[in-house]
């Protein structure tokens, strides 16, 4: 809040009106509708519907396909977040140290932010195309018997690889700017006390980067939950047999392709609850960080 503010008048309402209007129409209305639909059961033709309380939720939570998708989503999100954070932290520490070519490396590692998830998905799946993909051939020439079309683990491997590739650049940008924010005097003092760069990293640099890392963890989990939709839809489409479908992808498949409105809405509501928890977590953390 500002110490000095304008007095009460019609002006603030005028300024805030456009945003509130758009939010009401395109956010509040659909959100309420999702909530309402999650309590309805439509007949097979979508002609009539009846109020069924929590039956949709029961159905969703007890269905094996939802549980499997939930487990996959959690494993996928954790793996993608941890791997992409680890890789980009490793790269950022090295990029912060180099003197020659520092700018070029920075550009070479950060442009990936601009790649759309479905583009990343397409590039990735082409590399594993059985007809011509280099990685597919390379893996199989080592005797892995790699087959992502039938093997669920192999398919999951591809989706994770693409999702990590797409996310490295964002994490890299945040880590590099975090590293550059560490005062030179601290770094020099650490160098005098400790010759080993590895020990210096774990005892000095990493603790100083902890807030950034934690912030990125939340960002990455959110990314793995939602923004990987495009990657999955272009690469595996949830195949084989829904084993690589995240919860968001399942909402889309059930609601749009399967036309199970009630079930899809109930899934949406469950997702909303999960995101709310993540967001509240994130905000509490950010508030704390401001006090540092």
């Amino acid at each position: 809040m500002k110490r000095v503010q304008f007095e009460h008048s019609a002006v603030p309402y005028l300024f805030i009106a456009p945003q509130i209007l758009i939010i009401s129409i395109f956010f509040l209305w659909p959100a309420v509708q999702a909530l309402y639909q999650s309590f309805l059961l439509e007949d097979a033709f979508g002609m009539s519907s009846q109020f069924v309380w929590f039956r949709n939720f029961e159905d969703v939570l007890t269905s094996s396909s939802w549980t499997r998708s939930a487990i996959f989503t959690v494993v996928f999100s954790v793996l993608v977040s941890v791997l992409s954070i680890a890789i980009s932290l490793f790269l950022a520490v090295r990029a912060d140290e180099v003197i020659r070519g520092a700018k070029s490396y920075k550009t070479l590692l950060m442009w990936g932010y601009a790649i759309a998830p479905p583009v990343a998905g397409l590039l990735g799946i082409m590399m594993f195309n059985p007809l011509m993909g280099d990685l597919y051939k390379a893996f199989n020439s080592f005797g892995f018997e790699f087959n992502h079309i039938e093997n669920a683990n192999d398919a999951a491997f591809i989706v994770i690889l693409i999702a990590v590739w797409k996310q490295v650049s964002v994490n890299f940008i945040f880590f590099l700017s975090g590293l550059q924010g560490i005062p030179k005097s601290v770094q020099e003092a650490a160098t005098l006390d400790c010759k080993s760069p590895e020990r210096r990293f774990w005892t000095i640099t990493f603790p100083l980067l902890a807030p950034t890392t934690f912030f990125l963890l939340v960002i990455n989990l959110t990314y793995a939950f939602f923004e990987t939709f495009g990657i999955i839809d272009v690469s595996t489409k949830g195949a084989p047999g829904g084993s690589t479908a995240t919860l968001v992808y399942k909402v889309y498949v059930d609601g749009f392709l399967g036309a199970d409105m009630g079930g899809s809405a109930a899934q949406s509501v469950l997702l909303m609850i999960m995101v709310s928890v993540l967001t509240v977590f994130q905000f509490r953390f950010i508030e704390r960080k401001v006090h540092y």
Partner: protein
Amino acid sequence: MYQSKWRIFTNHTILVLGSLFMILPVWIAFASSTHTREYIFQNGLQFLPGGEFFTNYGAILFDAEATKGRVTALEMLFNSMVLGLGFAIGKVIISMMAAYAIVYFRFKLAVPLFWIIFSTLLLPLEVRIVPSYEVVANLGLLNTYTGLILPLIASATGTFFFRQFYRSVPDELLEAARLDGAGPIRFFIDILVPLSVTMIAAIFIIMFVVGWNQYLWPLLMTTDDQLYTIVIGIKQVYNSLYEGGQIPQFPKAFALTIMASVPPVLVVVIFQRMFVKGLVETEK
């Protein structure tokens, strides 16, 4: 600072490998997009460019047949541009105004309205796609630019960026402006907007890239080919790769992929400093 020779050597090796990890997939896609489809089919993906650059890219850009629909890549690029610019402009204007009301005014509904805006952060478009689609359909906005852009703007990220920024603007400016007799609208246009130029530019760049790369919403919204963005076009071309028993048109699919990526990547690389500043400072 002291660095051993070995450390310097490994630093460069690791960074070169990291850069290759990022660039190789795109490079292979580019190199493969400049060969004939028969060549790719027989020899697999290519590391070196061939001689079909102009043929393949020309066909994709100007011939709707090559993109498997009724629109050319040029028209898709135009749609993506409209989406990217419309999204960025709309978001910047609307969130600047809302943040101004929240930070600079004391008014009755301030707190509930703030929470309404905040609540949008809890619910990304992805989790409410089905009802959002129905609302837009009810309003008759399917297959229009308005229906494409407006629902995407209904999120609070931009508002929070500007709220954060306005809070860092010194209070003395407002005091001085009021002494000089400037009203709230005058203060906003003559003082706050010019002060925010760097911030606006940074957010604009980020939002343009975000808008350009939208996938799920345009996928649902645009059943009419005429409104396909280039990112959606990729899915269409990819889906029809194996149709008709012909040799798959891999080079043209790659060409479309490259074309979808070049504009946002250029924007990010050219405005790198502004972009990084905006990303890091606003998401804190």
